[in-house]
């Protein structure tokens, strides 16, 4: 089963290596990972998507807590979290098909962020499902290049104390 872990760590050099190395040596695959500073500049939040059964997840959580730089590990409930990812699609766009691509972008509330002679670059944010649907549609035009940030997530406000 897929889990989204939200891991608060000290914002120090080498912490990403420690976390990534732990997943690798304990045999857990990371599906995606995104890191950035939090509201407190001394802390970073890592959002890690991992496929694991309950027992493996418990073990990886405990192992994460053993890292001195790890402060908090949350397994976010998919029904109680906000998650987003940002994707840049560079799509083949001959002049006669540009309108269609722009139309698709609009439907998905995506933005055209660069226009080339034969391509358009689309910036889209959303859940993994939405982005997968969009990718599917854009594939018909030929995706020249694609970059994604990996998922970031927070627990919903209703979960706050």
């Amino acid at each position, binding site marked *: 089963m897929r889990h989204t872990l939200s891991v608060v760590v000290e914002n120090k050099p*080498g912490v990403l290596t420690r976390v990534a*190395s732990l997943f690798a040596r304990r045999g857990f695959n990371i599906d995606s990972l995104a890191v950035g500073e939090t509201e407190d500049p001394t802390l970073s939040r890592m959002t890690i998507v991992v496929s694991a059964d309950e*027992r493996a997840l418990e073990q990886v959580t*405990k192992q994460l807590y*053993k890292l*001195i730089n790890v402060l908090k590990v949350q397994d976010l409930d998919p029904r109680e979290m906000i998650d987003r990812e940002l994707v840049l699609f560079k799509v083949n766009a001959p002049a006669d098909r540009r309108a269609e691509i722009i139309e698709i972008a609009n439907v998905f509330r995506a933005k055209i962020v660069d226009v080339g002679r034969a391509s358009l670059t689309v910036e889209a944010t959303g859940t993994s499902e939405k982005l997968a649907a969009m990718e599917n549609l854009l594939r018909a035009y030929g995706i020249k290049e694609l970059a994604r940030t990996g998922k970031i997530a927070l627990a919903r406000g209703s979960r706050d104390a």
Partner: protein
Amino acid sequence: MKSTGAQAIVKSLQAEGVEVVFGYPGGVVLPLFDALYDADGIRTILTRHEQGATHAADAYARVSGRVGVVAVTSGPGAANTVTGIANAYMDSVPLVVITGQVATHVLGTDAFQETDITGITIPITKHNYLVDDAADIPEIMAEAFHIASTGRPGPVLIDVPVDMFRAEIAYRFPERISLPGYKPTVKGHVKQIKEAASLVSKARKPLLYIGGGVLASNAAKELKELAELMQLPVVTTLMGKGAFPEDHHLYTGMPGMHGGKFTNYAITETDLLFAIGVRFDDRVTGKLATFATKAKVVHVDIDPAEIGKNRGVDVPIVGDARSVIAGVIERLRKMNAQPRTDAWMRVIDDWRARFPFHYHASETSIMPEYVVERVRELTKDRPTIYCTEVGQNQMWACQYLRIREPRTWASSGGLGTMGFGLPAAIGAQLARPDHLVIDIAGDGSIQMNSQELATAVINKLPVKVVILNNGYLGMVRQWQELFYDRRYSSSTLPQDCPDFVKLAEAYGALGLRATTPAELDDALLRAFEHDGPAVVDVRVEREENVFPMVAPGGSIDEMLGGIPGGPVSEMLDGELLEEVWE
């Protein structure tokens, strides 16, 4: 007060009460060795190899209960500590390893003797640091000692670029440290402790399964009290040896691959496995699916990640062994719980009598088991610390010695590091100058760090090395005999190369040899009475195997060799069993 970074490190060592630093100098660590040169109260032991320094510090820590300290240079010096650090990590031994590093401005340029030692040691340290501001040194030193010695102990490495050693800082020993991500749970959960006590009071066939965690938390006294209060049989793992006196009537041996048959039967039959400071290692459990299947499991450990890692648990208790055991005792006393293991102990005693460790004695040839027995008997009345190398020698030491006191045993458990024993004996001797220190060795293992004989001789550390010389990598040969059709690939070592007597003499140690059983006692006694280091080359029966043995991946009650006995289901005395069940 102004100091250099190197002086600050030495002041921190003094503030932590460090008396011995094991190490080896080299280019970038020279400022630190310069500061150690006339440091009050700190003795620096120069080993002959950085691996030796790390193992010596490791055993020093095991025997003294304090943090072992290592100082080495960058590059190869740091890399040579890796095996020693991995060894300490696997066996949860507190170390602080200080490595020199190339100067900050050339870091990352593949400078001379540069190696990314913090990167290399991430998986084998509890934590590590690369100093990038010399002003942080006092805090980092204090944190390192705190992390190494609290919770589940382990090695911490501090990598110090040479310019950080030289930089001038204002030294102040930090009064408190702030580690928001590190708060080990010491006190066990009260409800869980009650539950454990209740299970203990009801169990008919309980068994205490004791590991290194009990030694780490200095809980031997509490353990004995608990065992005696409820008359609970006690098994100790290789790492737990010394936590419970092995001449006690409740002592039920070492479990696992080369453990006692009676011990493995007891584990297979127990209805309450009370596990404290253990990690259900594969060498103990054999096939997990058939391990202690009749038992409820209480598991006490200060490391939450160990609980439920290999074996499901009925009552998990995260906490320090000493505090949790004391809590269980208190609860049992309140309940006025009475021991009810009389019949169970008779079952165990019956097994113990029927399935002791056993070998065929010989009048002409020295059996390795006999050597260990003689070492045991000849040291019975004097305070002795036993170290081992790794392999058959280690397993025979486990089977035939009687470890009676905490911290008198140092053996490489989790990592199984050949070459551990001699440097370990050196560290142990420094921790306990008044004890006889013996390294039970094999002819293969001893050669991995025999250069440390120089360290022993020069520092007047009278360690005794007893080599069970069978001219083989004995355990490898045993596996090849049993599982590889006797094809002794790369496992034969000529018994007389090197000549261990001459080797000892070359270093200025006493070298002795015994080739017949009649010569053995004399050689051992002369070595033990000698006032300096001694090596006894004992030419033992070459193809003796360590038995009994659980085949790799097998069930622990189905053992090869030893006194014949089937699985536990066939080994139960009907009448006794009825009493246990009544």
